[in-house]
């Protein structure tokens, strides 16, 4: 990865408070005709600014993600990674700017999207089994009143098998380990048969085997033409397993092939002083357990208790 620094994608010494026009040059693909990018994008953002309350979380984001891309969103804590995903999922409305997802304004193609929240946002004490959770992926398409059909059941069984959780189908979700829970939530996403996966920290805090298994599955989905966008704290995973990387810190810092974006000089700009470069491999000195700026009233769930609402 250190070799890639020989072809710097942009001046790594420029400052985050540069003029917006210059900042957009940070996009490695900025040379591409914007109309072309929009027409071929599964996710397209134009000058998006968004925040919570009166605090800005992300500003002036321009982005086009082509169909079939396996994209990692990296950045320090509070950089706006989860916020960006929520914008794409239609869960947050941008203050300014435009968002198109799967060719329509955000939120309109919801049934073609599977969103998996951070593990802390799910109430694990909930009385549902593994297959109940995966079946939830089928609910939106089923609609009210209809009971799951044979096909729905088969889709759930297949999804459980793909994530290697068939043996746990009737277990309570809360009885599983962190890695198993991530597998089950990925199975729910697969069961929804979406065109766009939006995954918030899918491989955080899980063992290496699970991480490899889940990445193999996501890679397979991307090869089938599905778009997969995942936030991650794990730069090594982003470099090795994702085709492209998007680096954010309050705005879009860099976007391009992972080898180019994960250049230590670029990362230094994304992470500021919180980055340690060891033999060409960047290590983020960062508190791994952290939530991006969240909505007030959003419940966070930790082991051993019910969620506490944020003040």
């Amino acid at each position, binding site marked *: 990865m250190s070799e890639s620094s020989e072809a710097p994608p942009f001046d790594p010494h420029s400052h985050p408070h540069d003029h917006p026009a210059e900042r957009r040059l940070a996009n490695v693909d900025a040379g591409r005709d914007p109309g072309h990018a929009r027409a071929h994008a599964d996710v397209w953002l134009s000058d998006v600014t968004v925040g919570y309350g009166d605090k800005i979380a992300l500003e002036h984001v321009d982005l086009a993600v082509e169909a079939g891309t396996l994209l990692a969103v990296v950045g320090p804590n509070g950089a706006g990674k989860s916020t960006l995903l929520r914008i794409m999922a239609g869960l947050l409305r941008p203050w300014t700017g435009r968002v198109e997802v799967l060719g329509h304004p955000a939120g309109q193609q919801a049934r073609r999207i599977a969103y998996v*929240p951070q593990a802390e*946002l799910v109430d694990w004490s909930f009385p549902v089994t593994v297959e109940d959770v995966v079946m939830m992926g089928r609910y939106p398409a089923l609609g009210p009143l209809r009971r799951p059909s044979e096909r729905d059941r088969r889709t759930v069984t297949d999804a459980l098998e793909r994530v290697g959780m068939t043996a746990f189908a009737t277990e309570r979700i809360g009885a599983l380990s962190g890695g198993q829970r991530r597998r089950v939530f990925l199975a729910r996403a697969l069961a929804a048969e979406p065109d766009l996966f939006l995954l918030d920290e899918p491989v955080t805090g899980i063992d290496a085997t699970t991480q490899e298994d889940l990445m193999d599955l996501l890679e397979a989905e991307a090869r089938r033409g599905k778009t997969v966008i995942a936030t991650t704290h794990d730069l090594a995973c982003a470099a090795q397993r994702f085709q492209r990387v998007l680096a954010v810190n309050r705005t879009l810092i860099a976007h391009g092939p992972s080898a180019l974006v994960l250049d230590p000089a670029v990362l230094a700009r994304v992470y500021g002083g919180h980055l340690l470069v060891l033999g060409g491999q960047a290590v983020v000195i960062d508190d791994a357990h952290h939530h991006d700026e969240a909505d007030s009233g959003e419940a966070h769930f930790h082991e051993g208790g019910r969620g506490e609402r944020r*003040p």
Partner: protein
Amino acid sequence: MIDAIAEPLSHTFFLRALIAAVLVGTVCAVVGTYVVLKGLAFIGDAISHAAFPGVVVAFMVGGSFYLGAGIAAVATALAIGLVSRRGGIRADTAIGVLFAGTFALGVFLFSTLDGYVGDLFSFLFGYLLSIGPEDLAALAILGSLVLAVVVVLWKELLYATFDPLGAAASGLRVDLLEYLFLALVALTIVISLQAVGIILVVAMLVTPAATAQLLTVRFRSLMAAAVLVGVGGAVAGLYLSYWLDAATGATIVLLETALFLVALALGPRTGLLARRRPPVDVASA
């Protein structure tokens, strides 16, 4: 023994009370399952107290009990929904303010009436044994309506309760479901007011599901167990209060509370017998 059970059934007032007890026990347990899972017990308490001014106004103008209580309760429920979604203050603070304020309004209005102390007691603590045929009909209609909505939307309510973000992103109208659910809680409380009264209605809503939660970890069996506890507690409490000539609502709530304590003591996860087994709930990263 058989006589003791059969004898009350010869009175129509007791039969009406029995039907009401079964209906209220069922609806409360079904809606209460979601209330407990959502952690909304406090909201249930607030809505029931907020129904009081509605009841008093209905009483003053000679209007329908259900209409008065229903309007007040649903309006408060929706106000709570609005405040907790958009408010700049913490939801529990806003609920606390609404809760006390609306109840005070009811007490204030009531104090302007003369000589209705007996009625105050029945508003606050219920009057299941004196429920009239029209009240029973209204209860049956509203109860069936609430159950019908849950039958149609149980999947969506479950998904939106378990993972609101995932559900919203996949196209469920989580915001509308939230308001609808609060309205269901309000209606459930309104139909339960006559059985157990304003002060104790939250127990009808929360205790059966809380008891069931100690016994099972599956959603469907949880709801079934809650209905069993709710209906069983209501029917047994009705009989017990008849035999002992005690307040019906209080007897029902006491019985349900006793069932909860038994489940707590003997349940598979929290019980004394479970103490020696290693906890199964510990998640490793």
